[in-house]
């Protein structure tokens, strides 16, 4: 079995570790590129959302590279993601590819796909091997998330000194290549020491704090959000996000053990959006409120065009923005979005936040 799966930020690192740990050959799709966009928009339905198209592009490129098994997530609605795979399978079959689709459908979706997928994926491995593969993937996921968080907090101070970029890039590489848990932990601690050291060496400067919210794929995948986090770091902005791979796993796969995610979401969102609206809609509202309460300088919502849960969220964000005097930038992206335009808007937004902050600081001083 030559297994492939769609990209989403750093997701390929832990997923690859998992499948290899289970004894499969893994074909990681080429990093999402211009061609992926073209393939995706050519073969996907015109009004499907951007993640659908990019996933499809990833699949085509991976199948071309010799994959024969596609592993894809499922869902029970109302978000469209739950039905992606059904439509993508048809499209890929029409294009003449020979492959099997393994669908990780949550229990309750009314299909037997999950047990079938697990059986096929785990059949060659002993229980001990399965456990260690899962553990390895989980450790990698956690470390990648933590590493990113640290990097986003320190980089805006250290840049334009490029060593920090280098250190982070090496960290990602090492996490990808290393498959022993104790070594991984060591890699992470070396990374933190190095970054913190760098930070100590630079003069402190004022930076802005921004929270990134929105649809998980668009938030996590730098190739579709035009390197949003990197751009912010360069512009001297601390970028925070609550959405992460490990957070998703904790909330959606092991919600029983990690009830605090759901609690946080409902609690914070309640005054503005009391109902679940699918996808990350309620989360978006909750985190905007959090940003307001904690006096962030601004919030950036990233969503694919026609994303239903985010559109519901978007309708209530202006009210939160008013209540907390919190600037919000909406980035609605599709395959036609132009990098230059997005970056100009981003810079203008950063300027706006900086002006507001200066005014606020000045007022505080006078008082």
């Amino acid at each position, binding site marked *: 079995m030559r297994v492939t799966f769609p990209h989403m930020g750093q997701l390929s690192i832990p997923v690859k570790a998992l499948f290899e740990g289970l004894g499969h050959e893994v074909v990681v799709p080429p990093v999402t590129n211009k061609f992926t966009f073209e393939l995706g928009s050519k073969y996907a339905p015109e009004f499907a959302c951007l993640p659908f198209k990019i996933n499809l592009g990833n699949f085509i490129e991976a199948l071309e590279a010799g994959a024969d098994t596609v592993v894809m997530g499922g869902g029970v609605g*109302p978000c469209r993601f739950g039905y992606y795979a059904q439509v993508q399978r048809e499209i890929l079959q029409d294009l003449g590819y020979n492959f099997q689709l393994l669908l990780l459908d949550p229990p309750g979706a009314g299909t037997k796909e999950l047990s079938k997928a697990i059986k096929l994926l785990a059949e060659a491995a002993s229980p001990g091997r399965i456990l260690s593969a899962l553990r390895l993937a989980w450790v990698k996921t956690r470390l990648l998330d933590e590493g990113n968080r640290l990097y986003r907090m320190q980089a805006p101070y250290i840049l334009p000194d490029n060593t920090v970029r280098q250190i982070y890039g090496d960290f990602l590489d090492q996490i990808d290549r290393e498959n022993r848990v104790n070594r991984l932990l060591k890699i992470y601690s070396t990374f933190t020491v190095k970054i913190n050291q760098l930070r100590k060496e630079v003069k402190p400067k004022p930076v802005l704090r921004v929270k990134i919210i929105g649809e998980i794929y668009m938030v996590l995948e730098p190739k579709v959000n035009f390197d949003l986090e990197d751009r912010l770091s360069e512009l001297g902005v601390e970028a925070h996000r609550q959405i992460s791979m490990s957070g998703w796993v904790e909330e959606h796969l092991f919600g029983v053990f990690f009830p605090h995610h759901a609690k946080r979401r409902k609690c914070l969102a309640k005054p503005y959006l009391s109902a679940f609206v699918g996808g990350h809609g309620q989360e978006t509202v909750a985190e905007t409120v959090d940003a307001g309460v904690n006096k962030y300088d601004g919030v950036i919502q990233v969503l694919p065009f026609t994303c239903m849960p985010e559109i519901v969220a978007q*309708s209530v964000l202006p009210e939160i923005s008013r209540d907390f005097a919190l600037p919000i930038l909406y980035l609605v992206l599709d395959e036609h979005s132009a990098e230059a335009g997005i970056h100009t808007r981003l810079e203008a937004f950063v300027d706006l936040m900086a002006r507001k902050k200066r005014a606020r600081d000045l007022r505080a001083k006078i008082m």
Partner: protein
Amino acid sequence: MRIGLPRALLYYWFGPAWKAFLQEIRLMPVVSRMTTKEILKQGVRVGVDEACLPVKVYLGHCLNLMSECDLLLVPRIVNLRKKEFICPKFMGLPEMVKAAVTNEYGPEGKERVLVWKSEHRSFWDAPPALPDYLRKLAGPGKIKTGLHRAKQVFREYRALLHQGYLPDEAEEILAGKNVHRREQGAAGLGVIGHPYCLYDHFLNMSLLTLLQRREYNYAVFTPELFSEEELSAEVADLAKPIFWTLGRRMLGAVRALRKKHVAGIIHLAAFACGPEALIGELIRRECQSYGLPLLQINLDEHSGEAGLLTRIEAFLDLINTHAHRREGIGCG
């Protein structure tokens, strides 16, 4: 007290029953008039840019009603059936409406929105789902009879739609008026789409009645002509059940229509509709595999009558030649 009911979205599904309920508890329902250009314009102005056309229309109706009623009744419909959904926008509709009216009328506007939450069946069977305000106002006894009455009307209304009456005709019949059955032609034509696209005469420029008129003279079939059981049975064999009720009904309808040997199918989709982007693709494939002519139209803010009509006419021409060719082959 006058309670506003926007004639948009699932009003076409539930409307008369909501109305009956309000009347039964001695309140005055005020239903907005048919969509107009003005209403649409208002909705476009206050809605989020990215929202789909039907939601914008709904917001337009809400704003239009605000000056004519004291309170606005907005449903929060989670689903119509267990394990299914309609669309996230129905779950967050009250918030979208509140945001829009706050924009226009300030914070007091928001206070005038009543939310009636429904999960499968709970509209008529679960008094706690009703807005607190109405429950206190009417008292448990009246609420009970009201819901009972609503349930009854709902059944009658759905039965009328099932017989082929359009929603506005069915409403007139329920109000005791006489409605002539329109004569239907011999050749069948399927028209599918979400109810608020099919039955909003403004959005689709009265396509349904147009197709039935003399010059075309088709017997028009919509998903509402089939029973729920029929439609679900048609799609029971899908590898994964479709979890959007309206989408599932549409695909089921395509399969049922094929058995009725319709000459072709017109699919009226809403611009920027999420579920239809995927369902539309499934429908396209389905029709292709049957060799059934299909026209997919995206209704948007700017679809002008002329453009729509030319496309329909071209499609009907195509169907005719298609039919002749088939006959030709049959004779040979």
